[in-house]
Every structure is written in C-alpha cells, then in structure tokens.
C-alpha cells in the first residue's frame, strides 16, 4: 500500500536504473529503488518509536527523578543516580533477582528435560500422532493468567486434587505453597508444564534435520543406540537446545502472571520475581522513578540475553545442514 496505483501500469524500472529526477516527479523520486527499503519499513519504525521507544526514553528520564504518578500536581524531583544507587544497595532487590534466578534455572532445566523426552516420544510417525500432539502442545498456547488460576485450584490444600491425591498415600495434609522452597518448586512445575512443549517443538525440528543416510550408515556400522545418539543425533539438536535454553531463559526471566496469580510473591517475599516486584514498586508503592530505574536494569539484562540469542541463531545458520 506504499505505492500509488499508477505504478502498476508504469513501465518497469530495471533494478540498476539511475534514481535521478525522472519525469514522474515526487512519487518517482520517493519510489526510487534505493528508497524502497526505507519507505517500506518507515511506518513500522514510526509506530515503534512512538509507542515503544518514546515511552522508554521517557522512563529513562524518569529513572533519575523521585516521582509519584498518582499525584497529578506534584512535580518530579531530580535525584540523579539516587534511584540506581538505592536499588543496587537494597537487599530486597537482590532477593528478587535471586528468586527470579532460582525459578529460571529450575524451570528451564525441567523444560529441557521434559521437552526432550516428549520429542523423543513423538519423533516417529504413528497412528493418531497429530491428535495426541495437539493435547501436548495445548498448554503452551494458553494464557499465562489462566494457567496461574488452574494451578491455584490444583494446589489448594483442602480442595485441590494434587494435595488430596498425596494425602491419600501419606494420610497427612499436603500443603504445597507453605515454604519458600516448596512454593518455588510449585511455580517451576506450573511454568515447566506450560513451556516444555516449546522445547519439544525445537528438539523435534532438530531430529527432523538429521539426514537419513547418516542413520543408514550407522546401521551398517552396527553402532549402538547411545553412540548413534551422541555422534549423529546430538550434533543436530545441540544448537537448537541452546536456542531453546536462551529463548526460555529470556521468557522465564519475565515471569509475572503465573506468580502474581498463584502466590502473589509469597510466602513472604520468597517467590516474588523481578517483574512482580517491579509491578509492586510501580503500582503499590507508586515509586514511579524507582520503578523506571529498576525497569532499565531489567531491560539491560534482556538486551544482553537477546544478543546472545541472536548470536546463537546466526551461528546456527552459518553451520551446514
């Protein structure tokens, strides 16, 4: 929609045509080959600048102020690096990073294992495979807040089916969310349940890319299953496993909805992740400046992880196969 209709009937300009002032005037100038790229991406860039970049710059500015967004008439006051210094010296903030790290490590690890096993299970063709795959893939597509609500019910100590099932065997009430460790595990399980199918998809993609002749050759060599896996299969899925690891790390690092609904960060503050804490600083404590500063620290971490991810993508593309 970036070209006027007239260009449809206009004679083709060869790719190397001189841009120059052709007879077509302004449109001609604008549609010159070297401006096609910029023209096409301009609307997207403009939208992102207005709705994303501008607010981000704003929040960058706010991070140097003490400000409460709730009070319309009270102006922000300059505190320099105060918010950042405050944040880095606050044990509460470090605790939140630690909580987040524990959940990320636990959940991503579990996702890799379950995802890998699921992929092996679904790696061959069998009757009804497509339908069964749907059941396994469904959790990934659900809303995070809905999953939080599910598990809140499943974990409820008197009414939920998981504690009751355990109680049938132990005879003791089984209270899942009662200690920091158990609550963390509970969140990890909910998150891993949701996202293991994601890892499965990636690993399946890796398994598909293994050329058949390698297996045929291995059969002639009478290589054992483990050796076959290690020397043939694994090299093809390892880059994808790395991608899964990075991608899931970035996503889990942001975990908000599941925690917010399931534990509200409790018991105490032991499962409060950095996103939940950020939300609290911004909308319970209404420390807008401080929240912006914390947001920037978080953004920095995400940028680093995203660069790593893209680096891994490009490395994989460069590889043969």
């Amino acid at each position: 929609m970036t070209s006027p209709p007239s260009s449809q009937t206009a004679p083709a300009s060869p790719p190397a045509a001189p841009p120059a002032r052709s007879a077509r005037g302004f449109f001609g100038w604008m549609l010159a080959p070297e401006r096609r790229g910029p023209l096409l991406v301009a609307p997207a860039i403009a939208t992102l600048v207005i709705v994303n970049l501008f607010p981000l710059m704003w929040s960058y500015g706010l991070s140097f102020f003490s400000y409460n967004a709730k009070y319309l008439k009270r102006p922000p006051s300059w505190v320099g690096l105060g918010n950042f210094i405050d944040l880095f010296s606050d044990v509460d903030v470090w605790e939140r990073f630690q909580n987040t790290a524990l959940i990320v490590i636990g959940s991503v690890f579990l996702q890799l294992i379950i995802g890998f096993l699921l992929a092996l299970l679904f790696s061959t063709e069998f009757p009804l495979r497509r339908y069964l795959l749907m059941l396994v893939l469904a959790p990934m597509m659900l809303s995070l807040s809905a999953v939080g609500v599910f598990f809140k019910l499943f974990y409820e100590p008197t009414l939920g089916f998981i504690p009751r099932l355990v109680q049938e065997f132990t005879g003791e009430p089984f209270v899942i969310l009662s200690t920091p460790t158990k609550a963390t595990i509970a969140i990890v399980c909910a998150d891993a349940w949701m996202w293991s199918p994601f890892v499965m998809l990636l690993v399946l993609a890796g398994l598909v890319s293994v050329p058949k002749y390698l297996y045929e050759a291995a059969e002639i060599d009478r290589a054992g299953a483990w050796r076959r896996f290690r020397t043939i299969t694994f090299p093809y899925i390892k880059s994808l496993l790395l991608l899964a690891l990075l991608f899931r790390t970035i996503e889990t690092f942001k975990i908000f909805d599941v925690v917010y609904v399931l534990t509200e960060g409790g018991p105490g503050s032991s499962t409060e992740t950095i996103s939940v804490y950020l939300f609290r600083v911004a909308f319970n404590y209404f420390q807008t400046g401080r929240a912006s500063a914390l947001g920037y620290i978080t953004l920095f971490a995400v940028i680093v992880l995203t660069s790593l991810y893209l680096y891994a993508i490009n490395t994989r593309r460069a590889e043969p196969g």
Partner: protein
Amino acid sequence: MANPSNRPIGKSGWGRTLGAAAVSIVYFFPVLYIILTAFKTRQDALAWPVKFIFTPTLENFVSVFYRTTVEGGAAEATGFGLYFFNSMFIGGTSVLLALIIGTAAAYGFSRFPLRGNETYLFMILTTRMMPPIIAIIPIFVLFRIFGLSGTYVGIIALYTAFNLPFSIWMVKSFFDDLDRDIEDAARMDGSSEFRLFRKICLPQVYAGLAATFVFAVILTWNEFVFALLLTGTQTRTVPVQIVRTIGGAIGVDWGLLSALETLFIIPVVLVTFALQNQLLRGVTFGTIRR
C-alpha cells in the same frame, strides 16, 4: 510453507500410539480437569475423589453471561458478552493493523536491506523480548496525557505496537523462505517491483500471513498486564475478568471460573491444532523455522 517442523522421522505402530496416548492424556489432564469442572454443579466440582462420571450441567455457562447476584433478584447480564467482544475486536483490529504495517516492513527488510538492517531487526526483537512492565509506567502516563485510558483507540494502538515486532519477524521469515529465482525471472520479464510484491511474493505467503494473524491474536487474547491497567469498564478484556472473578462475592466459584476458562481456551486449543505446522515459527517469533 511446507517443511513442517514436527514432521516425524520414522514409523512406529499402535504400540507407540498407546504410550504416547498415556503421556498425552496425563499431560493434558490439567486442562481436562478444568473443562470437566465447568460442567459440574458446585457440589460436584470439588468432590473427592474427583468425579469423572456425573450429570453434566450448563448452569456454569449460563452464569458466565447471566447470574442472580441479589437473592430474589432477577438474573442480570454480567457483561461477559462485552468482554468477549472486546477481546476479539481489540485483538482482531490491532493484529490486522500490525500485520499490514509489519508485512510492508518485513518485505523491506527482506528484499531491500538497509544499512544496519540487522541492528534494526535486533532492536525490534528487543522491544518484543523486554518485560512489558518496563514500558507500562510511561505508557500509563502517556495515556493520561492524551486521554486514552479506557478507550479502544488507546488499547488498540498499544496492542498494534505490541504485535508489530512479532509480525515483522514472522512475515520476514516467510519472505526469506521464498525462492528468489522466480522473482528474478519475473524481473527479467519486466515486472514492476510493486507487481512483483503483489502478484508473486504476497500470494506465496498468504498461508504464512494467516498463521501470523492467528498467532498474534492468541498472544493478544492472552495478554493480561496492559489490559489490567489500561482498559476501562467498556473495554475490559477476558483475562482481566477471569482474574477478577477469583474474588467474587460467594467465595471462589470454581465452577463458574472453569466455565469462563473453558470458553476462553477452547478456541485456542482448536487453533493450535490447525496451526500445528507453523507452531515452531510462531512461538519463536519467526526466528527459528526448522
């Protein structure tokens, strides 16, 4: 668009089906449990042992839309129809906009690389990867200044930008996959660039565009944080209402909640089935295709 990522590599028989079925059903059990609960009465819902055989009732689904809140009072509309409409309208409109803008940009990035093309793409991906909560504070203030809070325009504009990075990366991945020889041949034949895009490239990615559209709609459909803070009474979406329903007036009405969830997830499960071959690309924002 071929090259489904989950194409199997060998053949197994019904034995594997049995094993996989057992695993799948266990894996799907949480969802199944919610769907079953939605059809149970309040008495059955929390009964132990879990009731798999029961007389199904539609009363929970009715109370999603109409319920009596005052003893002896008339059943009132809960407004849920509106929230469903909002979820669809806001999701559909913003994704359509994002797709139009994004397709243009994706074509640009794919066929006419700019200087620093990779950097642009990286920055675009970053805006998608960052926790939405970071942007929400200034957006909140921005909405206040422009009076956008609680309006459709505000939330649609926001979701358009939210879906744009995803659309660009996804659609670009489809354009990148195309066979360039066809385009070169057409160019030799004297096709204009616009014709090339319109008649040759675009038709080849229609399926991809459809997949992108559906994926983005699901992402938007599921979004909670922005919706919680920036939608008003008239523009509220379903996820917000679901979380709100937890603290109703009559304890936690799990049957009602399950009915809500069921209505909310069934479209998603069906779509997942239809999109199986595009899932990998979709969930990695088009960064991984195979």
